[in-house]
């Protein structure tokens, strides 16, 4: 038990002491601030028909708990789904695998560590929700239980489920991070959009949010005196010009079946870890393949040669960046397993053949999102692969190397979009062509800037996932590639934003090089 606690403790400390975790906490705080809109704001987060609750303690507690459960389940997976991989990269895993710790013990410690990381964010949001209550207080009394009960019952078990899911995906899909991303994307969408019309089915909701929303809908139906379905919106709905009407929500008493289901989700998750434990690779991965088996002659050479400096060809100066761009492209294309390019090719075929109204706003962002593992390390791979001593002591690393990385990234993204670009050119839809090019520059510059800023890839991965999720839900604010109609102001803002990202990335890298 002591070793188990030690693994959890040090793993947790290692993760939470990182710069990216600090940034994630700051973003979580900023997002939590928007969970309950300021009384005069023009957006809503949870709204049933034209109704929102009175700003009492229950509304703050339950709404922020629901939003935390959904939002953090969405991004939390990406935040914690590399715990085992990190151990592999840092070689800690090899040391751990040589200890008596069982697979289950190791995996379960990872689950707990994931859970602690996510719970830390939940706690921060919990504190923020109380602050928000006092900030927007309408004269209602403060009731701590209206905050504690929903947080304990809704996001905390959900976070445990996500912590388990992250470990399960890492064990089952090993190095295939792109499959992890896609699988979770679909699983999450299925879980969020599945309906639970009866009380019995609320127990099947891992996020634990639907029972509360159902209760809120029932309260509004009572006011409206109708039986039919009310229109419910969860998430950020912009442009609410009319002020919402208010209804009273005083929390709810959860049925015993729901309470048991929350415990059952956690127990079932634990059982899942027991089931997958035998499949864990225990860091016995193929770090060095083929070469020992296939080329023994390397180790038994008869003729041993030496470098004769005087015989070496003289080097010639060439400050062009073509070779750099070429190799950056090779690195991008070779990243990940080759067969995964089949998915990209299918996406490109879809872009070429299905109606442009679907291909442009839906297929293109998903196809680009599938490159998340390539883009996320576009300007941070030197550090990730420990090649930065070569890169940063090279000739003009800022102007040549960074530029090459950006050109290569944009080229790859545009290559993937090429069927759509060709169709748009044939249709003489040059605004779409311009928008797609702008979108490719935006997403590559975003990846580069965030990679340089954080020296890692997590933040971009999480953000790109949220943006793509918003793209699929056709939220205009997240449309960076012109899939929806926009005003000229929006286009100008996007251009300015793209330029700003380029400047931020450039200046930060320059600062890092000078330091």
């Amino acid at each position: 038990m002591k070793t188990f606690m030690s693994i959890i403790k040090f793993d947790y400390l290692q993760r939470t002491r990182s710069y990216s975790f600090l940034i994630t906490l700051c973003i979580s705080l900023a997002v939590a601030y928007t969970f309950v809109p300021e009384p005069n704001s023009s957006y809503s987060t949870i709204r049933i028909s034209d109704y929102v609750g009175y700003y009492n303690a229950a509304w703050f507690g339950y709404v922020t708990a629901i939003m935390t459960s959904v939002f953090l389940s969405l991004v939390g997976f990406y935040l914690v789904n590399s715990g085992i991989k990190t151990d592999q990269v840092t070689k800690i895993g090899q040391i751990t695998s040589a200890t008596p710790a069982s697979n289950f013990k190791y995996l379960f410690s990872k689950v707990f560590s994931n859970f602690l990381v996510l719970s830390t964010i939940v706690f921060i949001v919990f504190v923020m929700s109380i602050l928000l209550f006092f900030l927007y207080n309408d004269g209602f009394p403060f009731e701590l239980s209206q905050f504690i009960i929903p947080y304990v019952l809704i996001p905390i078990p959900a976070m445990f489920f996500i912590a388990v899911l992250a470990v399960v995906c890492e064990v089952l899909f090993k190095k295939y991070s792109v499959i992890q991303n896609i699988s979770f994307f679909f699983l999450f969408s299925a879980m969020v959009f599945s309906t639970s019309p009866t009380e019995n089915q609320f127990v099947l909701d891992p996020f634990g949010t639907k029972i509360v929303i159902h209760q809120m809908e029932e309260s509004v139906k009572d006011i409206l005196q109708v039986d039919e379905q009310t229109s419910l919106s969860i998430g950020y709905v912009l442009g609410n010009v009319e002020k919402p009407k208010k209804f009273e929500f005083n929390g709810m008493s959860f049925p015993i079946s729901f309470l048991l289901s929350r415990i059952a989700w956690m127990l079932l998750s634990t059982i899942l870890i027991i089931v997958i434990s035998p499949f864990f690779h225990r860091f016995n991965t193929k770090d060095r393949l083929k070469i020992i088996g296939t080329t023994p002659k390397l180790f038994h050479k008869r003729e041993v040669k030496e470098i004769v400096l005087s015989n070496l060809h003289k080097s010639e100066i060439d400050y062009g960046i073509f070779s750099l761009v070429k190799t950056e492209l090779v690195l991008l294309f070779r990243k990940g397993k080759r067969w995964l390019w089949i998915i990209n090719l299918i996406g490109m075929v879809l872009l070429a053949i299905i109606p442009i109204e679907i291909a442009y706003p839906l297929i293109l962002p998903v196809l680009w999102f599938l490159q998340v593992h390539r883009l996320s390390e576009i300007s941070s791979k030197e550090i990730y692969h420990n090649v930065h001593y070569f890169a940063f002591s090279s000739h003009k690393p800022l102007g040549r190397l960074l530029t090459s990385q950006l050109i290569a990234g944009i080229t790859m993204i545009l290559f993937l979009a090429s069927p759509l670009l060709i169709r748009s050119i044939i249709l003489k839809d040059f605004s779409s062509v311009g928008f797609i090019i702008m979108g490719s520059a935006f997403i590559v510059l975003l990846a580069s800037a965030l990679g340089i800023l954080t020296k890692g890839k997590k933040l971009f991965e999480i953000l790109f996932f949220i943006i793509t999720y918003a793209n699929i839900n056709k939220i205009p604010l997240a449309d960076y590639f012109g899939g929806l109609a926009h005003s000229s102001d929006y286009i100008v803002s996007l251009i300015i934003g793209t330029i700003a990202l380029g400047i931020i990335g450039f200046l930060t890298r320059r600062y890092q090089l000078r330091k």
Partner: protein
Amino acid sequence: MTLEIQNISKKYNRNKYGLKDFSITIEKGILGLLGPNGAGKSTLLKMIATVSKPTKGVIILNKNNIVKDANYMRKQLGFLPQDFGVYPNLNAFEFLEYIAAMKGIGGSNLKSKIEQLLDGLNLLDAARKPIGSYSGGMKQRVGIAQALLNDPKIVIFDEPTVGLDPEERVRFRNLISDLAQDCIVILSSHIVSDIDTIADQVAVMKNGSLLSYGNQEKLIKHVDQKVFSIIINKEQLGGFKNNQIVVSTSRKEGMLDVRYISETPVEHSIPQQANLEDAYLFLTKRN
């Protein structure tokens, strides 16, 4: 060709220095940097390689301040860091082409030059295989090859023999001697035997400061007539170590033959010929 390092310091926080008021002038030939772990060797080498900047002081190469004009150094630098990585999906040939492009090297001869380097380092057979499948020693040889791509005039090797087998070490020493005919070669290690056979000059560092600098004879003078050996039993060793700088111990007929450094030898001690390792241990352990 002269490399002048003038009063450089690297300050990490109010009380912590990686390097403090360090000055040295390096001429053509091989400079061996010796020092225990944490002495500041890598910090110094990173600053010379323009990867890191000093908090204070200047580094002058042929009258050019490379702290301000890093590209002047980079054009003629070959740098093998202590702990470097590779892109595992590239093969050795592609990786070297990539590094060459970063260094601003190209032209029609590049491919044949890479082949020559890989051949000379016995990597040609594996040159088309992903570097991710290479052993530690093979990766180290790729690192050596990249340092030589641009006909460097300043070559920095930080702990270069890590991962090389004894035969490769010998070949590497020959290569360094060859390089030193026209270049400044700076070689760091905490293993004295890596340095003593080839270095023209040796600098001993500790805690970010220069303890001593000069040719091997000059350094050895620090311990001239101070190295002795004595036969003691096992139980005496603990107490002996508390009072003397012990260089080595070896078993001899159930007793211990102890080589040590001292101003005032213990009774029955036998004087020994001093060497660079004695000088290094004396300089780094006396305080």
